[in-house]
């Protein structure tokens, strides 16, 4: 069996999938949920309910705030208590809709049965519209609105849909459990995405450390009899689940700097997103819950929970026995790219995939020492950058040189910092450089646009 992976760099942290045997488990409803209106990339949604309104599960409570935006649905049934700013997991305030839970009554038109619906609608536009109405966003981490990704700009053509089942971050197992337990739904979701993109071939990419999932999905594809969907076994390598890396691994095409995957004919969707697509299109069920891995060596009870959107983190943790004494850091997401939690009162969002507990020993950074020019950061960088150089340039605030050395291409995967034997905070510094370069690029684009418009206006005035 040949194994595929991306061409440049990558690291191989221990995968620590200690919660892989924990079956998906429904988390009991919290007494109150707090649903953020800014849980996707793009414009925040606009609330369309008022305090005191009764809502049902799956009812729209906020409308998209722009083209790149998403519907937000109530994840519970109950009464809207407040619409007010509330701190997210990093402590930053954004508008949340607070709903006191009363019972579990679902909105009309949602099929809550377990019956598998395998018939694929004929019209791609209808599929994409249902995905939009379902508030589906990319659940692999970026939370980019899925219907936007499925509507490529004119002139570009999708040649392959890739379903990302790599789950290359250590510890995370929710995609693995989803593949095992909801494999049929994921495969139908893949078939829907394939149809939506004009019946192009579809590849479900799964890393080799999930043999049960690989075997199961192969069986399901054979059983359901869909044409043009295959499983590709990937070598274990981080960050294989990165969009550009996965396209390179599957299609041997490299997406250019600043370009979109569609420029090389690829559309990538995560396993959890494929499941959400199935729910939205076949069952009329919008995203109201998602699976969250709760794990860590110091955490006594590993779990893969299906959690309603907006559930406070504290509620999830208390359900499993509270924060262990030895935990020093709680991470929302994986250990390589996840975000440290500063506020346990924060609520989950659609993109919350994991809560990871690390001890001080596992996570405390060692003091920085001198660079020994070993080149391990450059070997590890999956974008072919030179982190040691970008680190220096960022510290020197030389943004032009940062741009010339492609700081803007950094995907913030953390491979450089992970592998640096001198414990230099490479990525911390490079983020600063990347941010400055990106704003310079945006400023240039805006200036060019303004100049073009001014010239056009002058031209018009002359005539």
């Amino acid at each position, binding site marked *: 069996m040949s194994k595929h992976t991306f061409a440049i760099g990558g690291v191989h942290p221990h995968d620590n999938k200690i919660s892989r045997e924990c079956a998906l488990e429904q988390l009991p409803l919290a007494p109150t949920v707090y649903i953020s209106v800014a849980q996707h990339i793009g414009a925040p949604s606009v609330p369309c309910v008022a305090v005191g309104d009764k809502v049902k599960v799956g009812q729209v409570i906020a409308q998209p705030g722009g083209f790149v935006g998403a519907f937000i649905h109530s994840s519970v049934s109950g009464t809207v208590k407040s619409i007010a700013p509330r701190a997210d997991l990093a402590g930053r305030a954004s508008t949340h809709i607070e709903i006191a839970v009363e019972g579990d009554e679902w909105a009309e038109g949602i099929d809550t049965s377990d019956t598998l619906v395998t018939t694929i609608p004929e019209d791609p536009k209808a599929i994409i519209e249902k995905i939009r109405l379902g508030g589906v966003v990319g659940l692999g981490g970026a939370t980019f609105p899925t219907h936007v990704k499925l509507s490529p700009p004119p002139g570009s053509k999708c040649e392959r849909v890739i379903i990302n089942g790599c789950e290359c971050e250590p510890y995370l197992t929710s995609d693995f459990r989803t593949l095992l337990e909801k494999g049929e739904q994921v495969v139908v979701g893949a078939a829907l995405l394939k149809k939506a993109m004009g019946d192009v071939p579809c590849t479900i990419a799964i890393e080799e450390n999930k043999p049960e999932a690989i075997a199961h999905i192969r069986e399901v594809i054979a059983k359901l009899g869909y044409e043009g969907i295959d499983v590709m076994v990937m070598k274990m390598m981080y960050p294989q689940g990165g969009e550009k890396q996965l396209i390179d691994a599957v299609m041997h095409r490299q997406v250019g700097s600043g370009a979109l995957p569609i420029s090389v004919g690829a559309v990538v969707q995560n396993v959890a997103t494929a499941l959400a697509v199935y729910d939205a299109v076949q069952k009329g069920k919008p995203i109201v819950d998602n699976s969250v891995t709760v794990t860590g060596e110091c955490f006594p009870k590993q779990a893969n929970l299906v959690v309603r959107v907006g559930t406070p983190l504290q509620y999830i943790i208390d359900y499993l026995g509270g924060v262990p004494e030895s935990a020093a850091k709680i991470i929302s997401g994986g250990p390589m790219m996840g975000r440290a939690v500063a506020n346990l009162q924060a609520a989950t969002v659609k993109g919350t995939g994991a809560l990871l507990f690390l001890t001080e020993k596992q996570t405390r950074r060692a003091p920085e020492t*001198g660079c*020994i020019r*070993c080149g391990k950061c450059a070997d590890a960088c999956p974008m072919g950058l030179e982190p040691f150089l970008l680190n220096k340039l960022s510290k020197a605030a030389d943004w032009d040189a940062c741009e010339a050395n492609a700081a803007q291409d950094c995907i913030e995967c953390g491979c450089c910092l992970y592998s640096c034997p001198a414990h230099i905070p490479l990525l911390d510094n490079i983020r600063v450089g990347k941010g400055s370069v990106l704003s310079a690029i945006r400023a240039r684009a805006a200036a060019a646009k303004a100049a073009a418009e001014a010239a056009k206006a002058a031209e018009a005035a002359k005539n």
Partner: protein
Amino acid sequence: MSKLLVSPSPHIHSKDSTRSLMLDVVIALIPAVICSVVFYGWQELLVLGVSVASCVLLEWAITKYMLKQPSTIADLSAVITGILLALNVPYTTPWWVVFIGAVVAIGVAKMTFGGIGQNIWNPALVGRVFLLVSFPTYMTTWSKPQGLFGLDAVSGPTPLGAIQEGLMQGSTVQELTSAYDYKDLLFANLGGSAGEVCALTLLAGFVYLCCRKVIKPWITLSIFATVALTSLIFWGIDPSRFTDPLFNLLTGGLILGACFMATDYVTSPMSLWGGVVFGVGIGFLTMMIRYFGSYPEGVSFAILIMNSVVPLLNMWFKQKKFGRK
């Protein structure tokens, strides 16, 4: 849990540290160290002891009293410099000469440039070359190894020294090399500095470092390949004037230099092709010095010369960036 740590990602780190990498290099050198002590006896032990102790103490003293910075000796890089310096000098070198070598290696070549990671030239080699030009008598009096409990050492030139001497007196290479059994070269049985005589143990250390992924093999292999190819060409042209490839691979400090000195992180290029060019340069310069230079041995000079162009090689040979031409 009293307080939660909050910091940017990534939240975990590989087990590698500067210290762990340097420790692996020390481990890789242990077979050669044991071999040299067994073959040369207590005098070699003295050279090693003085060299390592002075390198570590000097680095400690310089960081504490001159730079007034936290000490860096815990990273073990000074230990490696000490071992490599010791393996690069004859076991008969007096202790105070070894100490001067350590002063030059650590004090001049390393700490003057700012300590670990900042030096341009390999510290141990700078120390060695300084001794070679300052104390030629001590540095070129070699003795055939007599073993840990051996009798009085018999003085004799190194194979490379003997060839150069012989060629000047009009002998041919065939007459001169017939005195050597190549098995002796591989199994540590000839005169030379400690590091020159334990080829197999050095190669074992090199394989260990490659397996542990501490170093990549391409610099070393391209040195070996270039030395073999260059000497094959010259030997093919005139076997009476030029020594053969195997002889050149097995003699002198080539194996020690190629495996442990040229692969020093700080003073070698980072990229694959940079490393290959670096290795080819070292191999070629070594052979030019051996064949046409006034010193019998050229590895040290070749490595130091190529060290000087590493910044250029790092600039010229870069990994292709993802999705860019």
